[in-house]
């Protein structure tokens, strides 16, 4: 009996290994035009081994869809009251895909593992208010920046008089999202202050409200969306006239992607024909749009 079971087990393991090998030519996840893709995959066996060397634009056009990685992040990509995905980046992506001649497919990702998603081709672009940083340039290719992303300091309303200047903030306990623009602002403009990194910008606000930290450094848009009347953070305020390092948003593509130039070209067209300024106006970002 045991011998048979042993044999069965060995067979199962062999089968598992074989199954792993077989999963290779499967298309990314959805029933996209596979007839055009499958022959491609078999005719160029080197494709899988050097994803960086591929013609990324051809890969996307071939699939006929652009898989866009996003997180729920107002006002870039978020769900409105009817449960539809809206936002500046959402509409921008739809407009760009329309010109590119592909279907946009939005996929919810974990922000912490976005680089893996891109490299593993589970998504084609990160398009979700992605801040351009030098570290990120090592893992992805950026298009031209399209939005200026200001960082602001959020404090408890009770502390309004205590924290007014950069100098006064240096004695506070700072908190920001790990790897975010807020973190770099905390480490450059407010170097020397005690700083803690948390998982998300929302957690940073939670820390301030729960009194486990004094100041959250987060995106300006997010700060204004999340605080104030109707939220659980009605007792938090943004310090006005505090100039922290601002950064820029761009679309993140795979390293060495050939699609970058095409994206820039289409974006320039969208700005010229007024499409993008109109979307920016709709989401209150008109003064932050970078017009070429």
């Amino acid at each position: 009996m045991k011998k048979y079971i042993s044999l069965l087990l060995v067979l199962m393991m062999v089968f598992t290994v074989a199954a792993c090998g077989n999963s290779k030519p499967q298309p990314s996840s959805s029933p996209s035009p596979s007839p055009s893709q499958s022959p491609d995959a078999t005719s160029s066996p080197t494709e899988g081994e050097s994803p960086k060397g591929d013609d990324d634009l051809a890969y996307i056009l071939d699939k006929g869809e652009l898989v866009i990685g996003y997180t729920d992040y107002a006002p870039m990509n978020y769900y409105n009251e009817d449960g539809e995905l809206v936002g500046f980046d959402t509409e921008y992506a739809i407009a760009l895909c329309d010109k590119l001649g592909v279907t946009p497919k939005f996929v919810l990702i974990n922000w912490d593992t976005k680089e893996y998603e891109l490299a593993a081709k589970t998504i084609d672009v990160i398009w979700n208010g992605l801040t351009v940083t030098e570290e990120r340039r090592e893992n992805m290719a950026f298009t031209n920046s399209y939005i200026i992303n200001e960082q602001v300091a959020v404090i408890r309303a009770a502390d309004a008089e205590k924290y007014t200047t950069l100098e006064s903030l240096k004695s506070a306990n700072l908190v920001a999202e790990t790897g975010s623009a807020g973190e770099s602002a905390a480490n450059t403009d407010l170097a020397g202050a005690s700083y803690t990194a948390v998982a998300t910008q929302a957690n940073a606000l939670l820390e301030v409200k729960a009194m486990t930290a004094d100041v959250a450094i987060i995106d300006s848009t997010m700060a204004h969306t999340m605080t104030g009347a109707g939220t659980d953070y009605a007792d938090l305020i943004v310090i006005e006239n505090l100039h922290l390092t601002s950064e820029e948003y761009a679309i993140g593509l795979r390293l060495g992607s050939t699609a970058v130039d095409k994206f820039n070209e289409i974006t320039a067209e969208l700005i010229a024909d007024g499409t993008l300024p109109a979307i920016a106006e709709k989401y209150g970002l008109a003064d932050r749009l970078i017009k070429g």
Partner: protein
Amino acid sequence: MKFLPVTLSLLEGFGISCIIFFFTLVFSLPLGLIISFGSMSRFAPLRWLTRTFVWVIRGTPLMLQLMVVYYGPGLIFGVAAFPKLTAVLIAFIINYAAYFSEIYRSGIEGVPRGQYEAGQVLGMTKSQIFFRVTLMQVIKRIVPPMANEIITLVKDTSLARVIAVMEIIMVAGTFTAKGLIWPLFYAGVFYLAFCGILTLLFNYVERKLSYFRV
């Protein structure tokens, strides 16, 4: 945001959690038994292989295993292999099967040797002894440690959010991102209720199986 829409969204997320829980259990329980046979095999290479496997699976975080299953194929072969939920189920089933296999092994090896001998004396075959003598006692012995592991599984389902599967904690997190804190803690109530039901169920099973008590 009102209480009802939040509850409905959380329920939807909890549905995903339940799917992960249910399928993991259904597949990892039998798979665990097969792995336990492997780690008790008299064929040394197989025993060595399965024990190494169990060591690797129990020795690395489930969160990391989830990422390996989901991103691994794409990173190595350049093509994404599994949809998200499938990747989650694969990682959970393998992980829990490894844990279950050790529980089965403790149960099987805990049955006194004399009973096998008694069975042999009576002329029973090996499989008859296993299914008619050993297994019955094994089931009864392993209920408490299994219950422990299964209740852990309920809460481990929240790890699926590492690859952005919309389980209940991730859903609650989207409310936090909109400025509502309470849904996150409210989500805990769902787990608590579910674990409460499981606890009652296991108590009942334990009572029903308390035959042979000396």
